[in-house]
């Protein structure tokens, strides 16, 4: 994760998205009963510019690739779906509209790992040199 650590884009992307999902679970726990937190995958969507940093372009005819409007529709579903699974940890909506089973992302359910990667506001400001009152 550190700057200059030389990790290539493809690996780093998966790792940062893993940590981001740890964050979604962490906020789901912090905001339980107050807000709804949903994670959603749009699927593999060439043409959004996401891959610009990898210096490769995913062709639109790749297997599993979906057009941008379909990816957008997947994301929009996360705004309106209210058939939440009974298990509060099951927060991941797939691009084909299923609530993903927890086994697929079991490693992100580790609460100690979630805590590790979810610093407090004050910790972030201190670490990144932001004045608390600026």
């Amino acid at each position, binding site marked *: *994760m*550190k*700057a*200059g*650590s*030389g*990790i*290539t*884009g*493809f*690996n*780093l*992307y*998966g*790792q*940062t*998205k*893993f*940590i*981001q*999902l740890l*964050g*979604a679970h962490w*906020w789901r726990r912090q*905001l339980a009963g*107050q*807000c*709804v*937190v*949903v*994670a*959603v*995958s*749009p*699927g*593999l969507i060439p043409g959004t510019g*996401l*891959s*610009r*940093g*990898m210096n490769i372009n995913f062709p639109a005819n790749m297997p599993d690739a979906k057009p941008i409007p379909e990816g957008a529709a997947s*994301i929009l579903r*996360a*705004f309106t779906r209210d058939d939440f699974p009974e298990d509060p940890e099951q927060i*991941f909506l797939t691009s084909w509209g299923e609530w993903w089973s927890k086994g*697929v*992302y079991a*490693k*992100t359910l*580790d609460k100690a*790992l979630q805590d590790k990667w*979810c610093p*407090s*506001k004050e910790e*972030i400001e201190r*670490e*990144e*040199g*932001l004045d608390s009152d*600026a």
Partner: protein
Amino acid sequence: MPRTQKAYDSLKFDTAKHNLTLLPLDLSDLKGTRSFARLALEKVKQDKIDYLLLNAAISDGSEGPGPNGSKWSEPYIVNHLAQHYLVHLLRDKLVESKSRVVVVSSGAVKQVEDPGMISPTLASALNRKPY
């Protein structure tokens, strides 16, 4: 901002029915993220935040220096830290609004086999080639 404004203008959105305001946000800049949060809260005033969509991501490597002198790589800041910070900054309003927070994730989360390997102290040892 000009590009976003142009895209918005091309939609010919009916502003007689709904208000829509564009505010600049660069997630590689945590200070700017805080300014955005303040501006957004000022704009929303007493109204609610019904939805917060966290959609931005980049897929660059960590070869370059961290933005604004950060020890963290830009993808980590954009894809997680700034989004996480933004939720902290908006937290009171989100709770007051009973908001729905939508986090755009990815099947790429499955790539991580050993979460211990993403520890920052081990990051520099990770230089596997993806192909």
